[in-house]
C-alpha cells in the first residue's frame, strides 16, 4: 500500500485502494491508491486525461471500478447508489457548474440543506440551523439582496459559487470540488481559495484544478495524477521541482495545460 497513512494515526476518512477503471481496454484509473485524513485539505492536479474526473466518479458512485475498493469512514462505497453515498456525507461540485436553473438561489440552497426523503420534503419543515445556514451562505456568495433571482440568470462565476455554496449547505463530511475556479476572476479565485481553506478542518476537502496559482494559495498537500495513478505527492514546491512532474506537464510538448 503506497497511500500515505494519516500522521496522527486516526482512521482515514476516505481510502482508495488499488482502484482501476477500464473503459473498453483504456485504463482511466490504473491501480490508484489514496488516503484522506479527516479534516484534511488536499489538492489533486494532473494533465488532461489523467483520470481526475473519473476518480471523483468512482468515489461518488457514478462509476463502478473494475477492481479495487473505496472506503469512506471505514465502510465500502462500492455498489452504493449515488444518493446513498451523498447522504453518507460525500458532496460533489461538478466540473462545469450545475445548478438548478429554474429555481431561485434560496430554493437551490434550501434544497441542498434539506432532509432528503420525499416525506420530509412534503411534510417536514426546515430546521432553524439549516435556515440560518442558507441565509449565511447567501451572504457568503454576495447575493443576499436578491435571493429570488433564478439560478439560470447568474453569470458563470456566480453559478460556480452558488454550486460551492450548495455543497456547503449540504454539510457533507467530505467535499469533492472539481475545478472550482474555472472562469473566475483573480479576485474571485482568491476568495474561493480562502473559503475552501476555511472549510477544511471541520470538513475534509479535496480540490481538483488546473490553476497552479490557486493551488498554491490553498497551501495544501498536492497529489499529482498521471495516466490513472498517483505520480507523486508533496507540497506545491516539492511537486513543482519533481522532474517526473515536469516531464509529464512539459516533456511532451503538445500536452501542456
Amino acid at each position, binding site marked *: 500500500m503506497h497511500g500515505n497513512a494519516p500522521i496522527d494515526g486516526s482512521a482515514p476518512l476516505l481510502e482508495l485502494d488499488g482502484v482501476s477503471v477500464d473503459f473498453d481496454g483504456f485504463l482511466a484509473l490504473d491501480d490508484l491508491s489514496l488516503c484522506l485524513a479527516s479534516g484534511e485539505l488536499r489538492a489533486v492536479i494532473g494533465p488532461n486525461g489523467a483520470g481526475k474526473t473519473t476518480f471523483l466518479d468512482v468515489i*461518488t458512485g*457514478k462509476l463502478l471500478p473494475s477492481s479495487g475498493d473505496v472506503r469512506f469512514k471505514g465502510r465500502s462505497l462500492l455498489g452504493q*447508489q*449515488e*444518493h446513498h453515498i*451523498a*447522504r453518507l456525507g460525500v*458532496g*460533489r461540485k*461538478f466540473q462545469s457548474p*450545475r*445548478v*438548478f*436553473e*429554474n*429555481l431561485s438561489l434560496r*430554493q437551490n440552497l*434550501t*434544497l*441542498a440543506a*434539506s432532509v*432528503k*426523503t*420525499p416525506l420530509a*420534503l*412534503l411534510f417536514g419543515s*426546515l430546521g432553524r440551523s439549516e435556515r440560518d445556514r442558507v441565509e449565511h451562505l447567501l451572504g457568503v456568495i454576495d447575493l443576499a439582496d*436578491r435571493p429570488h*433571482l*433564478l439560478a*439560470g*440568470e*447568474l*453569470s458563470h462565476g456566480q453559478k460556480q459559487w452558488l454550486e460551492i455554496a*450548495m455543497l456547503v449547505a*449540504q454539510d457533507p463530511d467530505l467535499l469533492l470540488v472539481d475545478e472550482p475556479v474555472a472562469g473566475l476572476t483573480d479576485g474571485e479565485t482568491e476568495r474561493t481559495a480562502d473559503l475552501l481553506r476555511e472549510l477544511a478542518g471541520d470538513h475534509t476537502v479535496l480540490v481538483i484544478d488546473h490553476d497552479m496559482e490557486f493551488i498554491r494559495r490553498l497551501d495544501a498537500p498536492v497529489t499529482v495524477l498521471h495516466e490513472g495513478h498517483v505520480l507523486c505527492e508533496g507540497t506545491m514546491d516539492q511537486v513543482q521541482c519533481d522532474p517526473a512532474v515536469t516531464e509529464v506537464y512539459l516533456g511532451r510538448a503538445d500536452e501542456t495545460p
Partner: protein
Amino acid sequence: MDSHKPEGIRLLGRVLPWLLIVVLAIAAPYALPSFRLNLLGRFLSLGVVALGVDLIWGFTGLLSLGQGIFFALGGYGAAMHLQLTCATCSRSAGGIPEFFGLYGVKQLPFFWWPFHSPWFTLVAIWFIPGLVAGLLGYLVFRNRIRGVYFSILTQAALLVFYNFFNGQQKLINGTNGLKTDVTRLFGQMVGSDIMQRNFFWLTVLCVVVAWWICRNLVRGRFGDALVAIRDDEARLRFTGFNPTALKTIVFAVAGALAGVGGALYTVQSGIVSPQFMSVPFSIEMVIWVAVGGRATLLGAIFGALGINYAKSLVSEALPYLWLFIQGGLFIVVVTALPDGLVGWWKKGGVPRLLARFRGAPRLATYPALELEGPDKPRITLKGDQQ
C-alpha cells in the same frame, strides 16, 4: 408579499375568485342547456387529468404519453360498479351483466366482485390507477430510463393496455365498452338531467380539490425538487435525493388524478370503452397543458377546457378541419409559445405585444440586471404565485 395593500382588499382578493367559482358552478346548470352542461362537466373532468399531466410534464419534465391507461382504469372502475348495481338492466343467466351472456360466460370474473361495494369503487377509481402508475413508473425510473425513452415506453404500455382491453370480450366486453347511463343511483338514472347536474357539481368539487392538492405538492420544497429533476436530475442525485422515489410518487399521483378524471368523464358520457386508451387521446392531453401553460396549474385546467371547447365547436361546424387545427397547435405551441398562454401572460406577453405594435425599441440589457423586466428569458416556475 402584498403588505402595502389594506387588509380588507387583500382578503377580498383572496375570497373573490372562490366566490366567483362557487357562483358560476351553482349557476351553470340553470344557465346552460343540458347538452352544454354535460360537455362542460366532461371537460372539467379532463381538467383533473390535465392537472396530473402538468405535475409530471410541466413541473417534473416527464412526458407521459400513457395517461390514457389510468384515465380508462378509473372509468372502468366506475362503470363496473354501475353495471353491477344496475337493477333495471337486463341480465344474463346467473344475474351477471348481460354482455357476459353473449360470450358464454357463466360466472362473474373474480376481479368484478369487489366492485359491488360503492366504497371499494370510490377508493379503487383513484387507488388502482395510482398503483399501476406507481409500479410502471418504478420499473422504468429505477433503470434511469428518461426523456424520450420514457415517453416511448409509456406509449407502448398504452398500446398494450389498449390491445388487452380490446381483445378481452369475456372479461370486460372488449371493444364495445361498458355503458353506465341507465343505472339508478339514489333513485335517479345516471343519465338523467338531475343526476348529470349532480355530477357536474361533483366534478367542480373534484377539480378544486385536485387543484388544491397539486398546489400543495408544487409549492414547497417538494415542488422545488420536482423542478430540480427537470433541470438536472443527476445533480439532484449527487445532492442526496433519490429521484426515482420522487418521480414514482409524482407519477402515481398523476395516475390517480387521471383515474378520478376518467371516472367522472365516464359517468357523464355514459360509456367507457378502450377508445379511452387510444394513442391520439393520450397525446392530446399534453396539448391541453402545453397551450394553457406548462408548470402553471390554472393553465392546465383552462387549457383542457379551452381546447376541448374549441374542438367541440369546430367539429360541429367543420369536422374535417379540427385535426389540421390540432396538428397546427402542436407545432405552434412548441415552437412559438413554449410556456403556453398563461406563461406568456405572466412573462408580460401582452405589454410586449403592444410594444411591438407601437414600435417601441426593445430593451437589450443583461438579463441578470433586468430583474423585473419583461424580457426575462427563463420561465417562472412557481406556478400560482399571486
